[in-house]
């Protein structure tokens, strides 16, 4: 399995896409931190400038690239079918479930790398921007917890992407579907029916990030551990369904 995971990581290192997606993820992190900090204290904004939680709120944006990692996961799987590399992959490893597991592990590792860089960027951006707004930078335990939560979210969104890609297989349909779900369907559900919305991947992420009242569920969230478990469950259950349904299909 180590050899297979190394091969999957090599696949990712020998194309340009992951690098572009990392740049996109970091841009989203910076935008998120800037939006959180610069709107603090404005009329109608949920946070005050001197809010002791301002830094924790700002670094929660370290997970801003979660959709990017989700898309990377989708691409990792759907490209194998689009370019026909699934054939050599399954010729080397005829037990297809092993290829899937190697991909899940590899994307989780890449998600962790994205997350750690994102976390560093979020902390630096927060620490620079908050004093500029005369806010308070508090390096308390919550900041650390939120950063760990952001890393967890980033680690788990990749495997969810792999599973979505395996289930849908058509690259464009999978990417567009994932974006439509994350930015439209999920947001609507969370805003209109918070008690349901908290069970979506987005709702679970908000719980892990301890967004509390700031979440669009207006505070109706699972506990931190509950959100974490729910995200793990999404990755595991979707992957298992993909392994049973779509991966066994004939490759003609």
């Amino acid at each position, binding site marked *: 399995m180590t*050899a297979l995971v*190394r091969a999957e990581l090599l696949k990712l290192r020998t194309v340009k896409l992951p690098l572009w997606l990392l740049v996109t993820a970091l841009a989203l992190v910076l935008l998120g931190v800037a939006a959180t900090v610069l709107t603090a204290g404005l009329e109608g904004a949920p946070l005050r400038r001197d809010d002791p939680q301002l830094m924790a709120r700002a670094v929660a944006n370290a997970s801003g690239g979660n959709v990017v990692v989700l898309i990377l996961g989708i691409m990792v799987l759907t*490209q194998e079918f689009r370019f*026909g590399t699934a054939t050599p992959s399954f*010729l080397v490893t*005829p037990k297809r479930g092993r290829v899937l597991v190697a991909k899940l592990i590899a994307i989780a590792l890449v998600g962790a790398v994205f997350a750690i860089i994102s976390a560093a960027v979020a902390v630096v951006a927060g620490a620079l921007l908050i004093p500029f707004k005369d806010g308070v930078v508090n390096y308390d335990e919550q900041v650390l917890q939120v950063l760990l939560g952001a890393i967890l979210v980033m680690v788990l969104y990749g495997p969810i992407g792999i599973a979505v890609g395996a289930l849908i297989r058509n690259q464009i349909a999978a990417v567009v579907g994932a974006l439509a779900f994350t930015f439209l369907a999920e947001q609507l559900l969370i805003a209109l029916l918070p008690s349901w919305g908290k069970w979506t991947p987005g709702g679970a992420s908000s719980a892990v990030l301890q967004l509390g009242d700031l979440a669009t569920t207006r505070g109706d969230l699972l506990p931190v551990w509950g959100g974490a478990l729910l995200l793990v469950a999404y990755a595991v259950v979707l992957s298992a369904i993909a392994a049973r349904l779509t991966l066994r299909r004939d*490759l*003609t």
Partner: protein
Amino acid sequence: MTTTLVFDALTKRFGDTAAVEGLTATVHPGRVTGFLGPNGAGKTTTLRMLLGLVRPTSGTATFDGRRYDELSAPVREVGTLLEATGFHPGRSARNHLRILSTAAGLPPGRPDQVLELVGLTPEARRKVGDYSLGMRQRLGLAAALLGDPPVLVLDEPANGLDPQGIRWLRSFLRSLAAEGRTVLVSSHVLPEIEQTADDVLVVAKGRLVRSGTLAELQAEGRGGTTVRTPDGERLAQALADAGLVAHGLGSDELVVQASPAAVGELAARHGIVLHRLAETAGGLEDVFLSLTGQVQA
């Protein structure tokens, strides 16, 4: 180490249509076996079933009794070249092979060795997207050789190769078989097979219509007669009644295993008009056409 391939009643149906039907054959080590048939005859589906990519409806295809997915180290046991499309266009040839080599747990030097073997070393670091079809084919062959396997399964390997490339491939396949490897090569281009293969399997419409040594099949092509008539059905019947073997090449043309004199006299006795009566040049092509054409009578 040698390996024998066995197809046993291999069948694949897509809905109501049978792509491959009851294919039974043996492929021996130390020989190049040509897997012949027109496009759409079921060659690729058969090979994909052999390699565990397509699940057979029934029957088996095995390597010394083991299915492909039961092999402990597939890349070291079977080298495969399927169509030339399995590459990410943005990746270099060397990186493509490094990925396969890593996944298969082969020594790190293997990719460069096989690139040298197929003559791609100067282009090894170029993106595969910039490769010509012939270069991709060589890269596919390099991938097949990564694990130095005793079995090679190659689907239309000469596709896209230039004449020198085809000559190179031919001698390369011969040398692989001479080393005791089992070489199965599919093709719809006859001359390739005629100059390379020891044994031949001919498929048409998903069924194995003939298997044997190349020499046997070529011998069958001699002494034949091609005959054209507006009355194909009656002639076929008359030939069958006379105990002569005939195959249709369309609605009005037949290939008969008899001399032109014998066919002409028979037609005259039955009052059947002939538009053409010619001794066939012989060779595999006639046999191939008669085997894969519409069989009448």
